[in-house]
């Protein structure tokens, strides 16, 4: 054969995949690939590409193969174990999570390509066929066991049977629930929701909710989600923080919660008696940097001037802005907070200098 037909690159996994991480990274850099800092490629995993860029803090689990011509994985993305990505062109954004046993590839053509935007998520055991381009936006989740197909062909075209090859495009902030089937030539608009078990045979408009087999519109475009009063936002944040307190307590941490008109303060003591604080301020006027403990996490609803942000970062305080959904800095309690807030759909962009 003229083209490579190997499904699983067993030889490379045995020779290269079993090397310790630092040797894999060295070897890739030696061969001219751009590999960032603190990249981890697990046992038995390999990444094979002509043009390869892996940014800082990317982790890849064990037994995973990523193969293509042009591959780019942005910072902080996490690819699970036993994942197979086999596509000519792969573009993975930052803070993307791809869970275990996901297969991306299959039945390749000259138009095969895969891209997924920042902070998106692909659940366990998804099967994404990339005969044609599959494009997924940012902050979009594809629920586990979901199947996306960009081709439909088996019986002979010469006998009159249909053969379809067409791309699939999924926008930003879309939620595809578990066990959904998406057929070729489907576009799903920004902010849409596809309920569990649906079979999507036609394109879905943005901000709508579809359900069923075949998927039918249940909440029309532009009507979803339900609008909430801005006065409710503070109440919702406090509710989530209350749940956070219960969660921390269930993890054997000592937690004290203080609530005032200006906001909340949560004081957490770990096993070594070190105290960490999480603050939520309803408005800027309610706080001053001097009153915030070092190494704390601060949630703010209103814009913050740059010099205030720098003051906070200097004291290793992690800032989470709810107006722009942006995070600044990093520390232990802040990462724990971000991790918990994700349970309620809150996703924070990492601040990049000169990029707002």
């Amino acid at each position: 054969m003229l083209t490579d037909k190997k499904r699983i690159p067993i030889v490379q996994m045995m020779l290269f995949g079993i090397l310790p991480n630092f040797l894999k990274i060295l070897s890739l850099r030696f061969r001219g690939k751009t590999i960032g800092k603190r990249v981890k490629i697990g046992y038995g995993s390999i990444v094979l590409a002509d043009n390869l860029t892996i940014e800082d803090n990317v982790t890849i689990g064990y037994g995973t193969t990523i193969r293509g011509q042009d591959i780019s994985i942005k910072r902080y993305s996490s690819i699970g174990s036993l994942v197979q990505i086999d596509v000519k062109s792969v573009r993975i954004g930052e803070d993307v999570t791809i869970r275990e046993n996901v297969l991306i590839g299959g039945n390749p053509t000259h138009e095969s390509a895969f891209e997924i935007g920042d902070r998106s998520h692909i659940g366990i055991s998804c099967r994404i066929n990339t005969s044609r381009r599959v494009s997924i936006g940012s902050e979009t989740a594809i629920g586990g066991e979901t199947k996306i197909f960009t081709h439909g062909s088996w019986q002979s075209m010469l006998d009159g049977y249909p053969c379809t090859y067409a791309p699939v495009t999924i926008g930003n902030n879309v939620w595809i629930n578990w066990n959904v089937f998406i057929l070729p030539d489907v576009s799903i608009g920004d902010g849409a929701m596809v309920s569990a078990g649906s079979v999507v045979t036609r394109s879905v408009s943005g901000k709508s909710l579809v359900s069923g087999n075949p998927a039918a519109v249940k909440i029309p475009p532009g009507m979803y989600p339900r609008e909430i009063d801005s006065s409710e936002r503070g109440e919702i944040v406090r509710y989530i923080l209350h749940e956070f307190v219960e969660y921390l307590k269930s993890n054997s941490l000592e937690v004290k919660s203080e609530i005032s008109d200006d906001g909340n303060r949560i004081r957490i003591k770990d096993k070594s008696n070190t105290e960490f604080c999480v603050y939520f301020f309803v408005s800027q006027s309610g706080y001053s940097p001097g009153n915030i403990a070092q190494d704390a996490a601060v949630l703010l609803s209103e814009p913050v001037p740059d010099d205030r942000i720098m003051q906070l970062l200097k004291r290793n305080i992690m800032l989470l802005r709810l107006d722009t959904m942006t995070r600044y800095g990093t520390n232990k309690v802040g990462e724990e907070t971000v991790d918990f807030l994700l349970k309620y759909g809150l996703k924070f962009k990492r601040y990049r200098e000169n990029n707002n």
Partner: protein
Amino acid sequence: MDIPNVVCLTIAQELDIPVEHVTAESDSTNLEKWDSLGQLQIIMALERKFNIKFRTFEISELKSVRTLCDRIEQLLNRQSPHADR
């Protein structure tokens, strides 16, 4: 405005069932199509019909014709306390 009638009609429309199936005793346990998706559709339709806004945290509690009617009456009275009942 006859709140119970409008509520029953709205529920029937949103769940796509005959209006005779929706009575004052109907709730999410005895109407088959009244699932979590149905609940969302009903809430949004009632907000539009009555020009009111439910609070986010009470939506999951309003799962019967009776509780919905009571709450809608409360919200309408709050909007215009001098209106005739």
